[in-house]
């Protein structure tokens, strides 16, 4: 490419091997220890979420009044080991965290997926077609973005009632705008690119151009935003559930666990500390992975990640 005299760089961004394979990405990930550990943490979290029944050391509802309020790393009366301690009913905190992850993570994933789906459709079509439709969509986006979303979520959940499904619905309605704004910008930029003009010249329909030509080319930035949005939604879920307007009691969620533990904060700090730590680590890992994806898929930066592997070196 113009302006660069380093042969390694030229080589790495040669269009012939521009599309890295999954293996290249994994190798690049292996070189970045911090991001690799973050990705491993997220994988482990997913595994625990999916296989809670098999992987949890105790039963989530297993009351054991003899072993109430045990601190972390303690062994109960019957020789049972509690990694993170127990709560006021003698339930194992680690087990409850695993089951809580199921709720918190699926709220984050489903909420982000729905808002991404609607936001990307609205944004890409608005950016590609333009006109009055674009004006209407973007006015709605700007209007909704300038409202305080946590407060609106709180109010809507107060009206509709909390619970898993309502929470996801509210997140989808209040978070699609960020995706719409970003994809509109991407579609606007893509509209004048050669590949779009070529597709149009060949008679492709608008829908085909938007979803078969533009969308695959703008997946990377959307993926970054999607990852960040999962983190934001997990944090919001915790806040709303803590206030009693999110996930409702028999379902365990990390935010609810903090709310429950708050009553015992003077005597049993671990009941509040670990659920919050779980949220913190999950959000942190999502943020780390997002910034890695951003760096790796950025055309100006990607050679840093792949050049070494392909024998060049910088």
């Amino acid at each position, binding site marked *: 490419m113009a302006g660069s005299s380093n042969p390694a760089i030229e080589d790495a961004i040669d269009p012939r091997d521009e599309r890295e394979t999954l293996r290249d990405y994994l190798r690049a990930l292996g070189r970045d220890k911090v991001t690799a550990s973050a990705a491993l943490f997220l994988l482990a979290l997913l595994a625990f979420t999916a296989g809670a029944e098999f992987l949890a050391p105790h039963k989530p509802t297993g009351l054991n009044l003899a072993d109430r309020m045990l601190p972390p790393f303690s062994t109960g009366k019957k020789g049972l080991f509690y990694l993170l301690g127990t709560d006021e009913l003698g339930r194992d905190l680690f087990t409850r965290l695993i089951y809580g992850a199921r709720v918190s993570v699926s709220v984050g994933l489903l909420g982000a997926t729905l808002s991404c789906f609607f936001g990307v459709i609205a944004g890409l079509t608005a950016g590609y077609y333009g006109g009055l439709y674009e004006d209407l969509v973007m006015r709605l986006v700007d209007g909704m973005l300038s409202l*305080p979303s946590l407060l609106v979520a*709180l109010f809507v959940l107060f009206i509709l009632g909390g619970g898993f499904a309502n929470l996801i619905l509210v997140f989808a309605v209040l978070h699609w705008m960020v995706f719409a704004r970003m994809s509109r910008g991407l579609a606007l930029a893509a509209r004048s690119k050669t590949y779009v003009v070529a597709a149009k010249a060949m008679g492709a329909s608008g829908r085909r151009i938007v979803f078969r030509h533009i969308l695959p080319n703008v997946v990377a930035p959307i993926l970054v935003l999607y990852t960040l949005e999962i983190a934001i939604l997990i944090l919001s879920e915790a806040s709303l559930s803590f206030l009693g307007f999110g996930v409702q009691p028999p379902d365990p969620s990390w935010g609810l666990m*903090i709310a429950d533990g708050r009553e015992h904060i003077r005597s049993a700090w671990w009941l509040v500390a670990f659920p919050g730590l779980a949220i913190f680590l999950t959000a942190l890992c999502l943020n780390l992975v997002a910034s890695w994806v951003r760096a790796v898929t950025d055309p100006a930066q990607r050679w840093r990640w792949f050049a070494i592997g392909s024998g060049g070196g910088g």
Partner: protein
Amino acid sequence: MPYLLKRVINSVLLLLITVSFVFFACRMIGDPALNMLGPGANDIALENLRRAAGLNDPLWLQWVRYMGGLLQGDFGVSYRYGFSVIPEADLKDIGVPVVDLVAERLPATFLLAGVAMAIAVPLGLGMGVIAAAYPRHLADRLVTVLSLAGVSIVQFWLGLMLIVLFAVQLGLLPTGGYGEPAHVVLPALTLAARPIGRIAQVVRSAMLDELAKPYVVTARAKGVAEWRVILLHALRNAAIPIITMIGDELSALLTGAILVEKIFAWPGIGLLIIDSLSRSDLPIIQVSIAVVATLVIIVNLLVDFAYRIIDPQIQLGRKA
């Protein structure tokens, strides 16, 4: 000028839509008279209240009356505060005006938000500038880690942990309350954590962009002292993304205060919102949500105006 005017009109429209949405949504959840008097109320009392409050009128008329009242500064009366007898005649004689309840709470929220921003802005600016001045040094890494941690942490959980550490274990500061300077320390620190991280991140990347530009090379070549290059040349040019971020964080802080006020029993508007939601005190909910939305919209508007003052080259209203 037309642009600014258009922005203001848009904001007012948005506010009207929000207030109306809240009004109609509150009517959706059931009979307001029943909500006011509680499930045990008898039919005669309910009917009296409906007649007194005009609840038998068509909904649109009630909406017109409500909006008209808002314009005249009449925000309605609270159902819960000072409301012991069943109202027979005029509601306004018995209930506490909402406007008083909300106005009473605003100073506490402003104080909290002000102190939090007074901590966050200088710290975030300082950390970002240092990180950009020494890229890839230990300080830079530390700032990156801290700012990532700041955006990943659950604010109210941080507040609880600070209570455990400083109030319960060390006994240095009160667990909550209002009135003395010591009371503001923990809630303000809790609220400041996130903006510190976000501001530092934005300052760092904006400064790195600026420091790579030719005018910085020129300044250095002329022999301008490095601190002048960084603080007077680059920082000034990096101001726009920084101001945007500070504005964003200020509006996030106004809503974040809801949880923090709850944790620390800080008697601001956030605590009022939570309390009235759990008591279904609809008049207060309607007004306090409108007040917070107004504040957030005003902050957004001010940020837009600030652009124009900082950088006359920006032509507002043009699509990017």
